[in-house]
């Protein structure tokens, strides 16, 4: 089958297999992406992040339904951490989106972080492109906001929403440094629980202190996702932010930055795979190590030599 043609013709199987090729780093992935690239750039990408237990999946589910009611098609990429011990993962976000499964206008894909160093953001970005080329109007990328690679994933979004819940105690201080900076819109979920007002006040204070976002003061919306309360208001804020970055040229800037990052990552990845293929797997690395350990050579000279060889090719 011609996977690209099928994908562009609306085959969900082709889309699904494409994302697998991206995830598993199959060789054909880069040629598929090359062919899909001209068909991308139309979708609005929303990043959704927040601490574990904040109700991100439920929120994603409700937002997706809201966008469906507006007549938009939706793609969802839900990222869950891979166990560092076994390499396996339980990808449990889908359970909160079961009612979307049979909606023809929705495609949900769960991904494990698979412990890749930085490669994950590159893979999710490509999966987003596949969904974009498939024709999805809105694409959600949902991930736990705990590590740098997760933050990188949502940085690739047009608009980033941070979901928080009351009762996290001092965690808000810890979170401040990381994901607060990337939030364009904040949602306080489980707003009927104690401490929601306090959390809102604290957030307001922090956001007011943040001088970098002068032209867009991130708004805060209280939500009870499980009951759908506040979801329409949240969509309005998300749309408002999207319109704002469109009007101020920030969207173009973000996408420019994103392309730049992707280009650099792609370059790094391809150098990385050259190294793996020609140096690690051939056993040359071991020989080099031996040389270093037995003081016949030093790391700096070796890197210099290897780089020269690579550049000559």
């Amino acid at each position: 089958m011609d996977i690209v043609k099928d994908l562009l013709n609306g085959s969900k199987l082709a889309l699904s297999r494409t994302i697998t090729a991206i995830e598993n780093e199959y060789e054909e992935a880069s040629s598929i992406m090359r062919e899909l690239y001209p068909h991308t750039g139309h979708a609005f990408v929303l990043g959704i992040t927040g601490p574990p237990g904040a109700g991100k999946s439920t929120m994603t589910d409700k937002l997706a339904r809201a966008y469906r009611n507006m007549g938009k098609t939706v793609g969802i990429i839900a990222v869950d951490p891979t166990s560092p011990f076994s390499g396996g993962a339980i990808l449990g976000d889908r359970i909160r989106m079961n009612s979307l499964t049979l909606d023809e206008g929705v495609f949900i894909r769960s991904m494990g972080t698979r412990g890749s160093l930085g490669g994950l953001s590159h893979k999710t970005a490509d999966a987003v492109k596949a969904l974009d080329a498939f024709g999805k109007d809105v694409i959600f990328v949902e991930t736990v906001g705990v590590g740098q690679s997760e933050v990188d994933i949502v940085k690739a979004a047009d608009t980033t929403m941070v979901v928080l819940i009351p009762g996290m105690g001092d965690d808000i201080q810890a979170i401040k440094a990381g994901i607060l900076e990337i939030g364009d819109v904040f949602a306080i979920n489980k707003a009927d629980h104690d401490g929601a007002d306090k959390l809102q006040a604290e957030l307001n204070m922090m956001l007011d202190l943040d001088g970098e976002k002068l032209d867009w003061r991130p708004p805060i919306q209280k939500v009870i996702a499980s009951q759908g309360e506040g979801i329409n208001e949240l969509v309005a804020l998300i749309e408002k932010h999207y319109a704002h970055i469109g009007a101020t040229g920030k969207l173009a800037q973000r996408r420019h930055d994103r392309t730049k990052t992707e280009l650099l990552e792609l370059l790094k990845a391809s150098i990385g795979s050259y190294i793996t293929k020609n140096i690690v797997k051939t056993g040359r690395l071991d020989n080099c190590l031996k040389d270093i350990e037995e003081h016949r050579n030093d790391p700096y000279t070796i890197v210099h030599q290897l780089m020269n060889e690579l550049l000559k090719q």
Partner: protein
Amino acid sequence: MMEKRIRVLVAKPGLDGHDRGAKVVARALRDAGFEVIYTGLRQTPEQIAEAALQEDVNVVAMSILSGAHPHLFPKVVELVHEKGMKDVLIVGGGVIPESDIPALKKAGIAEVFTPGTSTGDIVDFIKAHVK
């Protein structure tokens, strides 16, 4: 082919709420290095097949304790195949009398795991038969 993982959809078709087995198996598969998509209770065959498609899983593992397996297991096989996913390994487990197993296998269920099966056996079966 650096980062391939065996992806398994663990699902409970039908209406029974006994998910101890499904959850234990899900965890055991994770601990064996698989990526497990757990979709929870009360899944219709249509939902299971569609989720299998979107997640591009290698394996669909179902558990039923209510006796509805003769109806629901073959239905899932049929729908998964209809979606063009012919190479998916589909297995089932639960309270299933021995005498029902031949018909289920004929319908495309690769293996049926009855009470007392160790999770290690399930892992081994999947590793040996996954395409």
